[in-house]
């Protein structure tokens, strides 16, 4: 797919998810938590309930609309945390080298060796379920990718003429990192963070599915899937719509990441034109 197309399709899907999340209280049909009515339980999609209702008679559409808030919050905040941790460690390790680099590289390899989901599971088990502990668990466990990128970029950028020049002109280490290195490595970091957001949303869904993420009755796409498991043959719409929401949001984020990579990487621009 050409860079322009994936950028626009991905941006459109992500934009739609953000819009839905922001407007949730105004576009929902009923309250996603309180409007339970057992008289309406498990109604298939139709005119009154476009996505159907669940076993408690709550409107699936309203719950998905509110679930977007949780999924996007988890995606954005955990990626901000991961990027901050990863860039701080990777940039300083690549720039300073020495024992600090050995330590950070070792830690990164350790993090890469432990599946981040297992690690997040362990943290959730200690902290208990809930949005805050979910953010902590996901924000602390997948910084190794941005760390590796930042370290590799710092290693290659620090031998560039302008970084040497800055040192010769009396710039301090921090000033070199902020003015010379960081702006020049921002492109790949943004791409990694965008792709990581999709991963974080999936991880939230997985943890909630396993009962360790968002607790009922609050709607998150993962917890909705988890609750729908028992009715998958009798009321498939309970699984289909949260699943589609996850699918399109993560697809959108991945396409957006690809599209951004194409416009932020000068070499690929040169190849296209």
């Amino acid at each position, binding site marked *: 797919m050409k860079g322009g197309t994936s950028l626009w399709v991905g941006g459109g899907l992500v934009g739609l998810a953000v819009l839905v999340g922001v407007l949730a209280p105004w576009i929902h049909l009923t309250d996603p938590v309180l409007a339970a009515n057992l008289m309406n339980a498990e109604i298939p999609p139709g005119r009154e309930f476009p996505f159907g209702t669940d076993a408690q008679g709550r409107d699936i559409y309203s719950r998905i609309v509110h679930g977007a808030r949780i999924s996007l919050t988890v995606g954005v905040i955990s990626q901000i945390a991961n990027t901050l941790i990863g860039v701080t460690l990777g940039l300083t390790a690549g720039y300073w080298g020495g024992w600090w680099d050995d330590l950070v590289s070792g830690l990164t390899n350790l993090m890469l060796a432990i599946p981040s989901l297992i690690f997040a599971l362990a943290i959730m088990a200690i902290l208990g379920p809930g949005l805050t502990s979910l953010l902590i668990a996901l924000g602390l466990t997948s910084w190794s990718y941005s760390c590796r990128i930042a370290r590799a970029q710092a290693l290659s950028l620090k031998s*560039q*003429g*302008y970084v*040497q*020049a*800055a*040192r*010769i*002109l*009396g*710039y*301090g280490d921090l*000033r070199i990192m902020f*003015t*010379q290195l960081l*702006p*020049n490595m921002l492109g790949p970091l943004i791409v990694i963070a965008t792709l990581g957001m999709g991963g974080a949303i999936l991880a939230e869904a997985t943890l909630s599915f396993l009962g360790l993420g968002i607790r009922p009755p609050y709607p998150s796409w993962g917890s909705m899937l988890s609750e729908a498991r028992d009715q998958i043959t009798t009321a498939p719409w309970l699984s289909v719509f949260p699943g589609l929401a996850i699918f399109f949001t993560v697809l959108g984020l991945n396409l957006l990441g690809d599209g951004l990579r194409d416009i932020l990487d000068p070499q690929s621009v040169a190849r296209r034109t």
Partner: protein
Amino acid sequence: MTTPLLEVRDLRIALDAGGRSHDAVGNVSFSIGRGETFGLVGESGCGKSITALSIMGLLRSPLSLAGGAIALDGREIQDLPAADMRRLRGKRIAMIFQEPMTALNPLSPVGRQIAEMFVLHERASWKEAWERAEDALRQVRVPSPERRVHDYPHQLSGGMRQRVMIAIALACGPDLLVADEPTTALDVTVQAEIVDLMAELCAAKGTAVLMISHDLGLVANMCERVAVMYAGRIVESQAADAIFAHPRHPYTQGLIGSLPLLSARSRHGRQKLREISGVVPSIVAYPPGCRFNPRCPAMTDICARDVPMAESLPDGGLVRCHHHG
């Protein structure tokens, strides 16, 4: 006698390779007075650039300062703590490089890169720094500086970028400007402009220049005194006009003899350019005795045995040769 601005005494730079330490630069001594322009000439790999880096305090492994002293205004700076050395760099000693293409941050407007110097070294506010950056661009004769300050390096030509580099280097009015092959990457016509500009601005600000080059013509035009380096040692140093009129060391004679001369060619017709036979020896395999002896036309037994001492010349220079003429 007044203290020179920069005094380098018995500088020795070690190169660690394969567990052994080699002298990349040894016994290098020279001094530069206030406002003086001093040339350091030699082939690639003779140690010019690492001498400059050692003055800036920026030798990195596998290179290290193994001995000698570097004094700025009589104060030894080779053992200064990193933070003090950093305050000297850019403010009192500045440097410009060979490659103006890569020495500017591609993602930062040139005005910002000049302004950063005022903020960093003179604690100016950003607003004031931007105004002074525009003045600095005007001084290096960049046309319409009020617009150019917002340009990114890729929007400027090579000559313009080197002008920006000069503006950055001279921003804080340094006492010493180290110019490491400042014109090598530029067109010949632009070279002359840049050299003139640099000479003019440095003269106006009273900045001394350490000009590092392999271009004898450039050094002859710009410098008052010249030192010739070969294989990590200064083999001859004299006033610029004297060294071209009466080169004493066989290596200097060879260098000057191998310059193409248009006037000679018009008088005597087409001639083969003279050359110095052989190549510069590798740092790990310097010959014993005089390091130039395998290539020297005047070589005798003593040259392969004894290291020649630096001998003073009557007019103030020095030469390091057993048979200097």
